[in-house]
């Protein structure tokens, strides 16, 4: 279910939520905007795929959940306990694989894991056995006694995964775990996650949709620090149903199609270019509706929510567009309808519009929903509510 309101969520999960975020915001020092903004989530055991573009706030969210940072506003609750006050409640049962981590090259994989087992406070008597188990789980049993300096990137990544499993965690937070893994290793990792899920909460952050498609039972999609979807993969797929089109076009049409529609795939064939287009209606007479993949649905979600994300971020609007509220917006809408770029409204360079005009119709409905209708006197800017005239409507 599409949840543009931070508090709105998908149908209740099957299991009881164990990890809850209540209005969580996080702002980095000296940053102008929040990296996470008013995020509310309920996370139950199972594999939760966390999707989002680069810079969407995935790693920041995972750092909060790994108790490495504290929210600027709001609370993160683990079984009802506020992590800002009691981080150890979660740490005892947390496995965390950061996106960017290092190892000690002078230690072997076995020694490194034994070191981290001691850091985690695992009993010394059980350490050797547990370390061996974890190494076997990630397929490093044979390389266990080799120094980490000689490990490839993929092998180091597997060491990172193994260390996250050392304390048999109830919450496993993995940030871009498949980066650097070859296809076979990725497959093995997906199977491992599925095996581990059970009664655990596995939070898998990635921007590779196929990783979550294969294993996630629930999805959270972040865009610009806000949650724009929480629900099952099938719910996300349902949103895109009837909006994905397979269309064979002439090669010279490709640029124009790319400018007018979101194109998720394009393959050059002898008879033309086969494109996969996201559009609410048929993009052309010979376009054929096809079943969406999760990647299509994700792209559709991002495309359809980007305007609302703008609306929910007054600071971004005014920083990017500049405040200038005025009646020229109507003209701009007309220009948008005539095929010019939105929101820059410049004539398409070389006839290619990088901001598709199709956005204009969506913008109209979005503006209506958000209350952006001409107000008497045009004096007040929405959504920043300043008296300065806002260029929100004046795209010149």
């Amino acid at each position: 279910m599409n949840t543009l309101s931070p508090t709105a969520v998908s149908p209740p999960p099957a299991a009881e939520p164990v990890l809850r975020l209540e209005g969580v915001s996080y702002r980095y020092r000296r940053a102008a905007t929040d990296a996470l903004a008013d995020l509310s989530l309920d996370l139950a055991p199972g594999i939760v795929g966390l999707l989002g573009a680069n810079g969407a706030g995935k790693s920041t969210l995972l750092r909060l959940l790994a108790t490495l940072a504290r929210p600027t506003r709001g609370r993160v609750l683990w079984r009802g306990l506020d992590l800002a006050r009691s981080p150890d409640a979660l740490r005892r049962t947390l496995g965390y694989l950061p996106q960017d981590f290092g190892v000690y090259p002078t230690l072997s994989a076995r020694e490194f894991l034994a070191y981290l087992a001691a850091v985690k406070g695992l009993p010394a008597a059980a350490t050797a056995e547990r370390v061996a188990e974890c190494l076997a789980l990630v397929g490093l049993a044979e390389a266990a006694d080799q120094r980490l300096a000689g490990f490839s990137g993929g092998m180091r990544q597997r060491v990172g995964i193994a260390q996250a499993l050392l304390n048999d965690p109830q919450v496993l937070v993995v940030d871009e775990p498949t980066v650097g893994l070859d296809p076979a290793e990725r497959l093995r990792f997906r199977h491992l996650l599925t095996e581990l899920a059970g009664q655990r909460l596995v939070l898998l952050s990635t921007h590779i949709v196929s990783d979550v498609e294969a294993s996630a039972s629930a999805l959270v999609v972040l865009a610009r620090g806000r949650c724009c979807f929480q629900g099952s993969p099938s719910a996300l797929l349902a949103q895109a149903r009837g909006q994905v089109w397979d269309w064979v076009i002439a090669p010279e049409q490709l640029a124009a199609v790319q400018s007018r529609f979101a194109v998720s795939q394009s393959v050059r064939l002898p008879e033309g270019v086969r494109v996969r287009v996201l559009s609410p209606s048929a993009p052309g007479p010979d376009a054929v509706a096809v079943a969406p993949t999760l990647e299509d649905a994700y792209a559709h979600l991002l495309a359809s929510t980007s305007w609302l994300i703008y609306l929910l971020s007054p600071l971004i609007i005014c920083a990017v567009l500049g405040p200038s509220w005025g009646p020229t917006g109507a003209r701009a809408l007309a220009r948008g309808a005539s095929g010019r770029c939105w929101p820059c409204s410049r004539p398409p360079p070389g006839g290619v519009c990088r901001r598709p005009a199709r956005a204009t119709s969506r913008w109209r409905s979005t503006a209506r929903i958000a209350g952006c209708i001409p107000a008497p006197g045009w004096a007040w800017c929405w959504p920043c509510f300043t008296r300065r005239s806002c260029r929100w409507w004046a795209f010149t």
Partner: protein
Amino acid sequence: MVLALLYSTLLSLVGFYVVRGTVARDFESRVWQLLAATPLSRAGYLLAKWVSHLAVLLLLAGAGLGVGAVAQLARAEDAHLHLWELLKPTLVLSLPALALTATLAVWFDVLPALRRTAGNVLYFFVWLGLIMGPVVGLMSSQGANSGWVRDAGGLTVFWQSVQQAGIPGLGPGGRDLTGLSIGSSAPSGETLHLFAWPAWSVPAGAWAGWAGWLLLSGLAVLLAGPLLDWAAGRAPAAPTAATQQAGRRLRWLEILLAPWQRSAGGALVAAELRLTLRARRGWWWLALAAALGAQAAGPDPRVVDLGLLGAWVLLLDQLGHLALRDTETRTAAFVQSAVGGGRRVVLARTLSNLLLIWTLTLPGLLHLLLAGQPVAALAGALVGLSLPAWGLALGALTGSARPFELLVVVLAYAAVQGVPVLAVVPEAGFTAGLHALLLPGAALLWHLAGARPLAPGG
């Protein structure tokens, strides 16, 4: 003039540690690969680095001059401010020294062996040579007239100017340097002589020497150009740069550490010792053998003292990075997300380093004890306790190993000269008392700087 001489001497020491590291950072972060693929020439890159280093040093000098101007207006006998006279000594005396410092900062980054602690230590002695060379020359019979071309710091020019100015209290012939002190008041028992020196006329030839040193510094930077690609290829990736090599096997160490593996705490201490010792190179073990030999068989307590000093200096890089290793190796997230992980690691790291430092100085301490100098042995043990504590505290406070390394190198040099801070034999009671008193300070500093709770926001 005083400010200019301070910049020539002290800023060229401290400034080096401030500006160095930018070329090495480009290598380690692989930014160099991006730069190398652009039309930017090697010479242009090096000159840009050199100029940026020099600009930072001049900025520091400029801040000092501002303070000097305010001091002149507020406190000096003559409240008239002559801006050119204020600036002139810095430009003439300090600029070449700072330019040379900027050059050396680039070269110490380019040469792989000098990028880290070894370079930090070596630079102190290079700096010492650059300062002491002209002083020794001046004290010789011909020194004062030999011209400033041999002296980037401008001490020769300064001394020529002092002689020409006829300043009282310099002894016959104006060659008595014992009365010269930069940055401190008169020696005890002597009186200060006030004299008016409102304008300084730069000696003939000084400008030529000035230009010569600047040119030489610039050319010396350019000489590093052909080495850049070779040097970049020998830079490991940043996060594990200090310990990228797999290190030595050290089977004897495994035998020694085997019993430690039976407890979680012991395993941590053992891992810390492995991390420290496996990464050591051959020359380190040879130097350690020499230090241990001096400690055990030194015929004179002073030799034992030097052996102890050698062992401490050999652990300098380790002690300087105590608080920084998790960040530098990007393992901090593992440690901090574990219950009590940070506390366990700090405890284990402190214990392992105490164990190491005391083990490496044990022959010397026993030697002193057997030679009837128990207070000196106690002082040695206390220094062994104090150094890791201060390494931890200063590392946590500054986020860098350089301040600690510089401090220890200066103190080690002072110890060789007999100053009883790291020298345990000359005044053992003083050294022991000083370190015993300083220990709580280190603990407090570490607590304030390093023991931060979970912080909201970035």
